[in-house]
């Protein structure tokens, strides 16, 4: 009996899947051919004719490879996108929001402000509170960006995907501010455009820069990858 798996691997084109998946597909197709062969043999068909009849199951191996690739890869790509973009982006956003919550919590504790943020005593109280929450958050943001970009790189994300994953908290904030401004168009309030610009300046630009600082080290290719590419 022929080595059906070797025969399939010889004919099947690369499917662009993980080696384990390709191996599994080859085993499954080989099993089918083996069953066809066995069936022919039990009906008294000669060896060479049984092989021939089994191989007739596939008129065009490139065509079959293309069909399997089409059926399997969409799923792979979706998983890949989740692993390289959505999961790291959500982790980056969640940590950024967590740090914002913590820094706001601390900032709203007047005793802490009085003791630890002496520099803010010169401003008005509300501005002091805002800055007391904002500045520590800004300092922590590079770590959020770094976490997103690192996880994306570890999952095999390309450079633009890593950048997107790391900057995602900033993008989400921009989306939120834009949405609130649009709502303001429906229910107008005073100074909405100046509020939008202020929000952009405080919630987009400095956090964006802070996140980018964290993302930067992970935009470089890992050493092993760089070696392969060279």
């Amino acid at each position, binding site marked *: 009996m022929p080595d059906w798996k070797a025969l399939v691997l010889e004919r099947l084109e690369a499917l662009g899947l993980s080696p384990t998946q390709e191996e599994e597909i080859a085993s*499954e*197709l080989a*099993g089918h051919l083996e069953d066809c062969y066995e069936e022919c043999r039990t009906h008294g068909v000669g060896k060479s004719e049984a092989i021939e009849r089994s191989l007739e*199951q*596939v008129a065009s191996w490139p065509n*079959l490879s293309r*069909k399997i690739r*089409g*059926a*399997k890869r969409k799923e792979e790509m979706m998983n890949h996108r989740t692993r390289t973009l959505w999961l790291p982006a959500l982790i980056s956003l969640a940590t950024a929001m967590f740090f914002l919550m913590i820094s706001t919590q601390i900032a709203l504790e007047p005793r802490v402000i009085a003791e630890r943020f002496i520099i803010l005593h010169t401003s008005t109280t509300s501005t002091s509170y805002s800055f007391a929450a904002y500045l520590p958050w800004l300092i922590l943001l590079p770590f959020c960006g770094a976490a997103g970009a690192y996880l994306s790189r570890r999952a095999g994300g390309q450079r633009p995907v890593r950048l997107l994953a790391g900057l995602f908290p900033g993008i989400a904030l921009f989306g939120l501010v834009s949405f609130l401004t649009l709502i303001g168009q429906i229910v107008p309030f005073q100074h909405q455009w100046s509020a939008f610009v202020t929000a952009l300046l405080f919630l987009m630009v400095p956090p964006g820069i802070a996140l980018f600082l964290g993302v930067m080290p992970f935009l470089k290719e890992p050493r092993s990858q760089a070696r392969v590419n060279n």
Partner: protein
Amino acid sequence: MKKRIRSQIARGSAELAILALLAEQALYGFEISKQIEERTEGALHFTLASLYPMLYDLEKRAWIKGRWEANSAGRDRRYYSLTAAGKRQLEPLRQEWSFFFRALDRLAGVTHA
């Protein structure tokens, strides 16, 4: 005389055939193709090349799932079974085909042909 249904119609009905079979029991690829051929008296025929892309597609849609198990001959084969989502799809598909055949019957009297 046995007649093969033309490929376009066969492809359309293949989904229903596979899901209906797997609703009864878990089967591996070769068994699926054998049973479909036997039970349709050769009207529906699956080759390896037509069966597996369809199985992988159904698996991608999470209507069926495969797992490796040894068959009666002790050889490892990938058995497919219907998922809960697949079970939910089966009834509407049956109704759709039944509606299609009734409509065709009204139009062309296919049951009296």
